[in-house]
């Protein structure tokens, strides 16, 4: 008898946190993306600073354009009533809100770097709380009987395979543009074709390798 959650509780839990995050931030979260940004924090910070400068420039440009338009409208629109002196709705570009107000622009900007680091640290704390609360926390130098029986019982072999597996996970997830949280929960939840293809592919590969480990190796 498994002491883990029943399937429906797990489904509700994973769905609740994904939906909650999306509704709160209007973004998707992805753990491999968080790793990528945190590990390249110098470059990401530079990009954030550049973005902030551009955001300020946009605001400055918008203010200058508005001031100029007001000035010339006052000069040119003497015969017209004052309330018609501004840009007509049918002419020129449509009103553009500033970058800070435009939800589409906000969505396109990546989450701040510090929030990505917070996500990774919080995952650790959440896991620690769960393992302590359930009484499953136990410091050990192996990966448990499952790994020992199915993969290797040799400590050196274990270290080599865990490292190689980790490299494949890190490289593969970033090459595919997401992992089980980004593509799997967030992307498939939005019925995004690229996420459906990626999730089907990585599950298929994991199934094939797991059967090999179980039945052949």
């Amino acid at each position, binding site marked *: 008898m498994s002491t883990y959650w029943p399937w429906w509780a797990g489904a509700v839990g994973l769905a609740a946190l994904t939906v909650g995050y*999306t509704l709160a931030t209007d973004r998707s979260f992805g753990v491999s993306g968080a790793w990528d940004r945190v590990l390249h924090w110098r470059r990401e910070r530079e990009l954030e600073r550049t973005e902030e400068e551009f955001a300020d420039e946009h605001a400055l440009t918008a203010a200058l354009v508005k001031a100029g338009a007001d000035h010339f409208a006052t000069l040119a629109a003497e015969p017209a009533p004052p309330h018609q002196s501004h840009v007509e709705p049918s002419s020129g570009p449509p009103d553009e809100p500033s970058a800070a107000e435009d939800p589409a622009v906000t*969505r396109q900007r990546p989450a701040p770097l510090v929030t990505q680091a917070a996500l990774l640290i919080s995952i650790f704390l959440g896991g620690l709380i769960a393992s302590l609360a359930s009484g499953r926390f136990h410091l050990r130098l192996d990966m448990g009987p*499952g790994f020992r029986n199915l993969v290797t019982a040799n400590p050196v072999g274990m270290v080599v395979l865990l490292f190689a597996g980790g490299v*494949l996970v890190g490289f593969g997830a970033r090459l595919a543009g997401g992992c089980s949280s980004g593509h799997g929960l967030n992307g498939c939840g939005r019925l995004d074709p690229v996420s459906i293809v990626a999730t089907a592919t990585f599950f298929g590969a*994991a199934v094939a390798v797991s059967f090999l480990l179980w039945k052949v190796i």
Partner: protein
Amino acid sequence: MRTRGGILLANIVTGLALGFTVTSIGFGDYAELNRMFTFQDPRMLLSFAGAIVIIVCVFALLRVRRTPGRIHAGVIPGAVLFGTGWAISGGCPAIPIIQVSSGYLPALVTIVGIVVGVRLCRWARGRHLRIDSGSCEL
């Protein structure tokens, strides 16, 4: 919640919930994971698939905006590598973190591997792999 502080709070709450939930489901347990991938025990598979079904329904009801990504050249090879690594090490990018927090100290090696893999991928994409992933960066 769309300010910097709001996003930070959302990430902390989501990270705590994600760590708690995947640990409680059993994703950190290699034997459970292998039973899922070999269909000996559908419990975890149903958790994952059930979550996706719920999310799809809620997003459809709330009309959450879709931002479809492009299926670029890296998706399938990357997903194959990722799935292979997941089956071997028992860890997707979040799982080794909760394995360490459950006391599996060798999972630190998996984390080192992920660090190397992520850095290697960005290096290779910048120099050798001409892959434009468009907006598909999760």
